[in-house]
């Protein structure tokens, strides 16, 4: 006999104002007291579906039932009144407020003069924390706290509003492996208190570990709901992607050769003028992939921007093939054989309003091939080039005249990789090369990076995806607060050790 579901969503369709059909008739039912996984690739519609359930978005079509009664949410407040609250992927905390004021924000009663009783609020929060067996400081500005702690404040904020159903949108994306464990402990406690949790993720491992049941979404449709203990990662992956996936990467052993890039005692400042990179020294050799692992925001962005000529170097040296390139502008670096796959493809790697052809020569446009007399741009050559790289890299484009924003994320990324490789580089910087990219393109891009390495190029790979680093790197460094905690060979360490290092704990051996 089926338990009656606590939440039932029926035939949910969502068409965004720009015409994107994000959900195409989705059914979902969630039982009371379970941890229900919502699994799907980027763009599958997970966030959209949960924003509808939490009252932030209205469905174009479809019905929602809570405890068998149909509801219509006009705002998040309506959903909260029905006991449903969501912790968003991007936190909604006010940086300069302390935890307490973030939590009670918007709850000061409705009358003009009614004030919330701060002491009573503190009491309630303390009890919540005791029940869940953790402590977070509620009296310091949240911006000074680590991301994992901020996330707990977000969770407290939602629980404080007495929700029974807690929705967590990709909560582990920003956490270290240790923080993930701690989060899972909290989730288990909540489950023991008979709370219902909807856990969004695109990581199979996590879903297998924490959930009771999983619903898999693909391209706005439900592929199925399964009991976690009756399924396997392989089956889930297949449901998620729609075909058998073998994320197997062939990586033949290879001796690295002479160093191509040498970085010596590099210091770089971040946007808020803080020291972001603190005296890094390393080298990347011909024929190797040097990976940098770490939780995002530990200086990776600044390091890459400094090496690629986009950010000022305070101190230290960058040497390429024996030539000092410290502080040289990007154009000069490209001419010396550097290629850069930037982490932010939409705001840096591409001009989304411009066409595929126009984007295919970005950063190559001054080359002899594309320049005619008196600075004319040779469009016929540019188009030939675009056609060639699109074909070689199997980038799916409606036409090379179509604006790049009409491509899917995976194809945008492939276009960048294709363009950067067409520069015939000696040294490639690949920053988060497969973030937000579908599985098929991910496989393609990863294999491609290995190819470059096999061709004796030097590859510097920065990724927040630990699996990616472990799979691809010949050597890897773990970065924490602007310093390397260690440089290791992936096969010589366990994931636990790396997890500790990502949290800043030194690896001793």
């Amino acid at each position, binding site marked *: 006999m089926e338990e009656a579901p606590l939440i039932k969503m029926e035939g949910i369709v969502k068409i965004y104002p720009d015409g994107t059909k994000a959900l195409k008739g989705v059914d979902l039912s969630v039982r009371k007291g379970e941890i229900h996984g919502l699994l799907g690739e980027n763009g599958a519609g997970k966030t959209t579906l949960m924003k509808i359930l939490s009252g932030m978005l209205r469905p174009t079509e479809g019905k929602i039932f809570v405890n068998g009664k149909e509801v219509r949410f006009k705002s998040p407040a309506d959903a909260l009144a029905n006991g449903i609250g969501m912790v968003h992927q991007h936190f909604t905390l006010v940086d300069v407020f302390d935890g307490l004021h973030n939590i009670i924000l918007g709850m000061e009663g409705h009358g003009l003069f009614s004030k919330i009783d701060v002491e009573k609020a503190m009491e309630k929060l303390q009890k919540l924390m005791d029940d869940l067996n953790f402590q977070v400081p509620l009296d310091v500005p949240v911006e000074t706290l680590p991301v994992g702690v901020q996330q707990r404040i977000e969770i407290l904020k939602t629980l404080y509003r007495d929700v029974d159903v807690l929705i967590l949108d990709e909560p582990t994306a920003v956490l270290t492996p240790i923080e993930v464990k701690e989060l899972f402990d909290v989730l288990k406690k909540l489950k023991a208190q008979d709370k219902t949790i909807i856990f969004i993720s695109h990581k199979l491992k996590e879903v297998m570990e924490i959930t009771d049941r999983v619903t898999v979404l693909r391209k706005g449709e439900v592929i199925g709901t399964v009991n976690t203990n009756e399924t396997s990662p392989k089956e889930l992956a297949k449901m998620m992607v729609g075909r058998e996936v073998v994320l197997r990467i062939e990586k033949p052993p290879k001796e690295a050769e002479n160093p191509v890039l040498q970085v010596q005692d590099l210091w770089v400042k971040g946007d808020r003028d803080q020291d972001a990179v603190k005296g890094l020294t390393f080298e990347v050799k011909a024929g190797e992939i040097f990976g940098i692992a770490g939780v995002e925001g530990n200086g990776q962005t600044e390091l890459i921007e400094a090496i*690629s000529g*986009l950010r000022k170097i305070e101190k230290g040296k960058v040497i390429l093939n024996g030539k000092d390139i410290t502080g040289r*502008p*990007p*154009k000069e670096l*490209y001419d010396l054989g550097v290629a*850069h796959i*930037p982490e*932010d493809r939409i*705001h*840096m*790697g*591409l*001009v*989304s*309003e*411009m*066409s595929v*052809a*126009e984007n295919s*020569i*970005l*950063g190559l*446009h*001054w080359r002899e091939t*594309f*320049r005619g007399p*008196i*600075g*004319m*741009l040779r*469009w016929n050559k540019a*188009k030939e080039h675009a056609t060639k790289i699109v074909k070689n890299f199997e980038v799916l484009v409606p036409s090379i*005249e179509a604006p790049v924003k009409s491509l899917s994320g995976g194809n945008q990324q492939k276009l960048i990789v294709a363009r950067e490789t067409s520069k015939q580089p000696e040294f490639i910087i690949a920053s988060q090369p497969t973030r937000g990219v579908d599985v098929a393109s991910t496989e393609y891009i990863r294999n491609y990076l290995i190819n470059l390495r096999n061709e004796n190029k030097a590859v510097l790979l920065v990724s927040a995806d630990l699996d990616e680093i472990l799979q691809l790197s010949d050597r890897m460094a773990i970065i924490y607060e602007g310093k390397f905690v260690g440089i290791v060979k992936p096969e010589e360490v366990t994931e636990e050790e790396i997890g500790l290092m990502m949290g800043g704990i030194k690896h001793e051996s």
Partner: protein
Amino acid sequence: MRVDIRGFIKPLIESLIAIVIGILLGAIILAFSGYNPIKAYIALFDGALGSKYGWAMTLSATTPMILTALTFGLGARTGLFNIGAEGTVYFGAIAALILTNIWGNILMGLLGGIIAGIAWMGIPAFLKVFRGVNEVVSTIMLNWMAYFLALYIVLQKIPNPDDPNKTIAVPLSARFPIIIRGTELSWAFAISVIAAVLAYYVLWHTTLGYELRVSGYNERAARYAGINPKKAIIWSFLIGGITSGLAGAVEVMGRPPSYAISQGMANIYGYGFDGIGVSLVGRNHPLGIIFSGIFFGMLKAGATAMQIEAGVPLEMVRMVQGIIVVTVAIPGILDLLKRVVRK
């Protein structure tokens, strides 16, 4: 590159719809004020397009507006909000007057306009690139400075000894030949059209134009691509200076009967602001600007006929035109806002 038709159709349809709505709104106002809108519009269109003379007046009114619109349009394509065309026009006109009076030929006059334009537009360019001064602020202030400085020159330095109402005139040898006798339409119109076509060429068929457009869309992508956004900004200002400097030059060298600047500068005043509207309606595209320039020229040329034939007072004519212009500019303004918001 082949002109991308799909990219054109949508803005074109939007602009056409906006024109129809603008005209309808104007009609409503006219009707409520007790005038016959149909009669008024017939007078307007007939006056502007119904005869060779009307066409000539329309195109001559269009001439300077295309050039000032290019200044704004080029700026917008480069991510700038350059509203300094107005002041630049004055100096273009003054420089052309002075140089033609020294050398007496058209080329020197045009050169004068170009140099004055570059010099004056160089100021906000310099302030932006080296001092980080927002170009909206600097160009508005410079417009006022230009106004009083130009007025001083007009009144004190180059007054016409024979006619207290205007400055010295462009000598006969340096005037643009008239295309249609008895009208104000001179070959200066060709300068505008050539400038617009050249601007299109630069933007879409040169590496410089490519760099300008990349910077305009996305400064970070530009830097990443090895483009120096500062260089792009300077070029955008300088080319914009050239076109609005030329606007002033062709206005004094190609507009009968005076071929001079009037004492209050009334005959060269306002083109910079008109240019913003023209550019917005033309979606900041040089070729679109030619057509929207003609639309604006038509409204100007038809104003007299609307007054005389339909008995609509000048203020009313201006108001109706203002409503049409604002409505027609709305899609372009929305485009611009979308970009600003995204930044």
